[in-house]
């Protein structure tokens, strides 16, 4: 399972990296090239986002990537095919990230079964709180996949405990209020919040939203197990092209 993998990796690394792509943006071919570059740069985990027309938790950069991928006709099936190819080609765990309607329309049980068949390891569904996720949790358990849940700075201790009861693999801590891709202040406030997260769960912690450079990663080292780079790699692709991704990731630690 993911938890064991993360603990094993952490034995000789101070912090792990998880990167993110929107499947089909800027194209399916480039998406696969980006996965390849990120794996070559040494990331330990990847989240592959299946685009959705209403991505309410995402900021302008990832929102635009969702829309452009869909405008080019990327289907859920094409995303699952690409995810499977990545999982079979590269020796790191891949997670799917998407909004609940994608699972719901596919059929939650069928979607989870497909994930398992395609060697994907877990899922992040940001608009599915555990209270609404009975079908999903049951299916994920049945197929031994990890449902990744989210903590936010607004989550109180009691709710963190409830979420912990359902979470597996690791807990994804959202660094701040707001959507993806905005500025995050890496300060003592964030440190206090991470300490609250640490007390609430035994699972490894990942931190995402606004992580963009080596200074941010240095700040997070020793405080979380995984740093998540999302929007920043899309910005690199847009400004410097896909070939710049590998060197960007490689210089982060």
């Amino acid at each position: 399972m993911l938890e064991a993998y993360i603990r094993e990796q952490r034995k000789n690394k101070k912090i792990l990296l998880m990167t993110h792509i929107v499947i089909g943006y800027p194209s399916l071919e480039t998406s696969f090239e980006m996965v390849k570059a990120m794996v070559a740069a040494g990331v330990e985990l990847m989240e592959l986002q299946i685009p959705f027309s209403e991505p309410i938790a995402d900021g302008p950069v990832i929102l635009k990537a969702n829309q452009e991928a869909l405008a080019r006709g990327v289907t859920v099936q094409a995303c699952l095919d690409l995810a499977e190819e990545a999982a079979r080609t590269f020796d790191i765990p891949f997670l799917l990230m998407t909004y609940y309607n994608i699972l719901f329309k596919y059929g939650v049980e069928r979607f989870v079964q497909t994930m398992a068949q395609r060697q994907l390891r877990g899922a992040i569904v940001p608009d599915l709180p555990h209270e609404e996720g009975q079908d999903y949790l049951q299916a994920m358990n049945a197929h031994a996949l990890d449902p990744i849940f989210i903590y936010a700075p607004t989550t109180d201790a009691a709710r963190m405990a409830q979420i912990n009861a359902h979470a597996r693999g690791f807990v994804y801590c959202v660094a701040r209020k707001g959507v993806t891709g905005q500025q995050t202040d890496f300060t003592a406030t964030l440190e206090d919040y991470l300490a609250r997260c640490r007390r609430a769960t035994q699972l490894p912690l990942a931190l995402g939203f606004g992580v963009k450079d080596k200074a941010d990663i240095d700040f997070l080292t020793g405080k979380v197990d995984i740093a998540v780079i999302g929007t920043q790699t899309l910005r690199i692709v847009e400004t410097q092209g896909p070939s710049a991704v590998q060197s960007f990731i490689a210089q982060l630690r």
Partner: protein
Amino acid sequence: MHERGYYDRFGGAFVPEILAATFDELVAAFAAAKADPLFRPHYEAVLAEYAGRPTPLTFAANLTRHFGGARIYIKREDLNHTGAHKANNVMGQGLLVQRMGKSRVIAETGAGQHGVATATMAARFGLACTIYMGEVDVERQRPNVFWMERLGAEVVPVRNGTRILKDAINEAFRDWVGNMDTTHYVLGTACGPHPYPEMVTYFQSIIGHEARRQILAIEGRLPQRVYACVGGGSNALGLFSGFLEDPVELVGVEAGGEGLDSGRHASRLRSADASVGVAQGYRTFFLQNGDGQMRETHSIAAGLDYVGVSPILAHFKESGRARFEAVTDDEVVAAMALTMRQEGLIPALESAHAFARAFAEAPRMKPDEIIIINQSGRGDKDIFTVADAFDDPQWQAFIRAKAAVYTAKEGSHA
């Protein structure tokens, strides 16, 4: 969140974790207000003093004679301050904002009516205000944009997605997840995550409760049918709320656009193009493709041009408590024209959907039967769209002359 707000298999609260605490706070504030015996009377007093309630129930003698069927009554929500039923919900949520001690409100708007209503409330209550509006709607409802800005609101044109109502809702949520400490999201319709469907219906139910009282006072008996247009569903649920326990048929009328077979419509409850999904925080019928991606919708009426529909109405459809119909853009324009000529009333294009369906059914009803149509808003805001629909040459000449004046002014400044 313990209370999820389900109506059979519709509703729920599918919100990102960052907003979970904010929704708990809102659920608690709404529950406390409902439990406070002074709240509802205060709310009704505010609407009486500020918005002009109760609105009349007007007997449409000429239309009744014209069709020779059921007696036609019209509930005059167009006479609310700002010209639509939206004020009912906005003033109610404004009182909640005061109870929660927040200083800023945000809202989405389609036709612009909800945006204007929110901007007036914000001005009255001393709140900062930002309105999200799809770029397409900004173009077709410019007069409302003008008024919102004069009222002190910031209007943000939304250029994402299909650039209409649903995209404005997404953008309002994106604002809210960053600013929930100071900000309340005044959602304009009975959609979205719990408690919005219940809360908006609670405030809009004033329409139906008044209408029931009024028809009993005038006719001494209940109507056979009541008609309301259905976008998100707030004016329909408002009217229907007064008659839920009565043997009254509830008829919701959706935007059939260019026809249900054309693919260019916004009918979620009547067309075969819709299916159950989860988006914008709730589960209902959506116009979506097989992958779960939302489709483009179309209606002549910006306020009905929406992919989802209230989970309470979705439940009414399945339980059979309400009947849903769709009318085309052309039928709507014809119904609006007839209502203006016969009664001197100008229904909004949204409201005219309810009129169009009622006009199709009224002639087949008996003269001792009664119907009520909800005129949810007034149509003068639609002057540009309506002038185009009527292809009015004098209007076009006026606009050209006005544009020439602006162009000349620009030239003299250069």
